[in-house]
């Protein structure tokens, strides 16, 4: 009987938190719908960009491009633009250079070298491109190559690093490490701040002679240090256990880890400002973490998502975080090579911190 009374009392308490109750169902449904839409309506290989430098402009190059267009998002560009898309913007995993005289040589049954400039860090897109190239080569070879001579020899050239081979671990280890750091930060920041309210620590801190920015900043700084250590240790674990490459510059890796975790910590403070109870923190935290992870390419490569989702992904902190880590690890970039990502993540962190400072009702109870 007493158990029943306790249960009824707790149910009454739970039922007072309407946002928390709604969050139990609404938030997971929203996440399921969003992720299902993102993963089921993907464009497949059609979403993969393949810049083509058509220096031939002849019938064979045209036939090849037509065959590629059946499977890929082919864009005819100049050589410098192709280099930019692969090596600098990392929008494309590879660019194909169709040399001058390709058609003449092909029609005269003379072999030609076709150059494929690659970014092996985008190895999954690259694999898909190579499969499509094989198909297109077979289709085109059947047009004028009766005994399947190798009239088109593809010369692969990595323009972003020394390594040509990658595995799914290179996607999964950094991706899941980032996802867990984000999840941990959202939960730890929001739950810790709520618990301080419950214990009335917030009230006591509010009347202390410390500016709100210093107060919030100090708390987030502690999380930043823990989160950075967590991320670096997870990557080091991946390095020693699974042979994950960490790049050539430890300073760049540490800088990226700090910038990524700083952006995530400040973002976690914004999330914390919206949740009012522990019950709300869990579904909201999970929803935010899963949506950011799936849209930002932490679970699967970005090209597998519909273009609209890819466009959203371009402005997400997780996309920039993954890109910065891949730049250091696989493209072996130095500190200057990742300056854009560091600036964007820094701006993300600062903006989030200012929003959190504005929204956060820290010490509301002491005030009232």
């Amino acid at each position: 009987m007493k158990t029943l009374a306790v249960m009824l009392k707790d149910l009454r308490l739970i039922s007072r938190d309407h946002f928390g109750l709604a969050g139990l169902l609404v938030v997971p449904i929203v996440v399921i719908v969003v992720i299902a839409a993102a993963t089921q309506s993907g464009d497949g290989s059609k979403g993969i960009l393949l810049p083509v430098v058509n220096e031939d402009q002849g019938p064979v190059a045209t036939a090849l491009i037509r065959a590629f267009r059946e499977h890929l998002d082919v864009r005819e560009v100049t050589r410098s633009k192709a280099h930019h898309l692969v090596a600098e913007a990392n929008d494309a995993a590879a660019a194909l250079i169709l040399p001058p005289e390709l058609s003449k040589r092909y029609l005269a049954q003379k072999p030609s070298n076709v150059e494929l400039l690659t970014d092996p860090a985008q190895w999954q897109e690259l694999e898909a491109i190579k499969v499509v190239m094989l198909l297109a080569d077979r289709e085109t070879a059947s047009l004028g190559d009766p005994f399947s001579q190798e009239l088109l020899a593809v010369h692969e050239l990595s323009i972003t690093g020394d390594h040509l081979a990658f595995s799914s671990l290179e996607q999964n280890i950094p991706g899941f490490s980032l996802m867990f750091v984000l999840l941990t930060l959202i939960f730890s920041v929001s739950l810790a701040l709520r618990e301080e309210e419950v214990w009335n620590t917030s009230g006591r801190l509010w009347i202390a002679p410390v500016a709100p920015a210093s107060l919030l900043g100090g708390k987030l700084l502690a999380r930043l240090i823990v989160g950075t250590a967590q991320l670096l240790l997870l990557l080091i674990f991946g390095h020693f256990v699974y042979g994950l490459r960490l790049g050539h510059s430890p300073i760049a890796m540490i800088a990226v880890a700090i910038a990524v975790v700083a952006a995530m910590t400040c973002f976690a403070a914004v999330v914390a400002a919206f949740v009012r109870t522990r019950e709300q923190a869990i579904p909201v935290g999970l929803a935010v973490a899963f949506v950011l992870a799936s849209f930002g390419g932490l679970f699967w490569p970005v090209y597998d998502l519909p273009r609209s989702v890819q466009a959203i992904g371009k402005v997400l902190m997780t996309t920039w975080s993954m890109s910065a880590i891949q730049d250091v690890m696989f493209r072996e970039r130095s500190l200057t090579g990742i300056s854009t990502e560091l600036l964007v993540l820094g701006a993300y962190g600062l903006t989030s911190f200012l929003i959190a400072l504005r929204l956060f009702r820290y010490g509301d109870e002491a005030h009232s």
Partner: protein
Amino acid sequence: MMRRLTIIMAVWFALAGSAQAAAPLDYTRTILQQARTIVAGNQTHNEKLAALSALFGKFLDTDAMGREALGEHWSSFTSAQQKEFLDLFRELLQRTYVQKLLLFENPDFVYAGQQLTGNGATVDTKIVTPRDQFDVSYRLTRAGDNWIATAITVEDVSLTSNLGSQLSDLLTRMSVDDLLTLMRRKYGNPGGEVS
């Protein structure tokens, strides 16, 4: 008197015959213009392939080209193998040539000239694209009132010689039966798609 009349009649028929036969360049132009109409048409790729194969079936002397391509290997084939080889080679050559022609979306032919040599002729043509031009020459032999192509040269490379060197290379690595099996697998379905 009768003897003189017979000679006059023979000369008249010969002249009449030669007057009826089109010039090699004109005949080639007629064939290529028909090919151009097919290539530029709205048919599917396979329908164009079939139409062009039918057109070039009467223009290309694939038996002569096949024998030339095999060269010294010809004698090592039995008569049954020779017959099957020529059947498959006809399909191979037509498809190789026709598929190359189909690479051009809207081929523009230019006729550079003709050189008459005894009973034969060489017609030089160009396929002109907005950026480039491709030299294609036809060696023709008179066949009744018409002409028949016994060799095609694309960008100074003979199609027959090229196929001949590939066949020769294959025959150093495989038997005649294996070669015929390979050709049967790729070209044993006349009118079908190239595998």
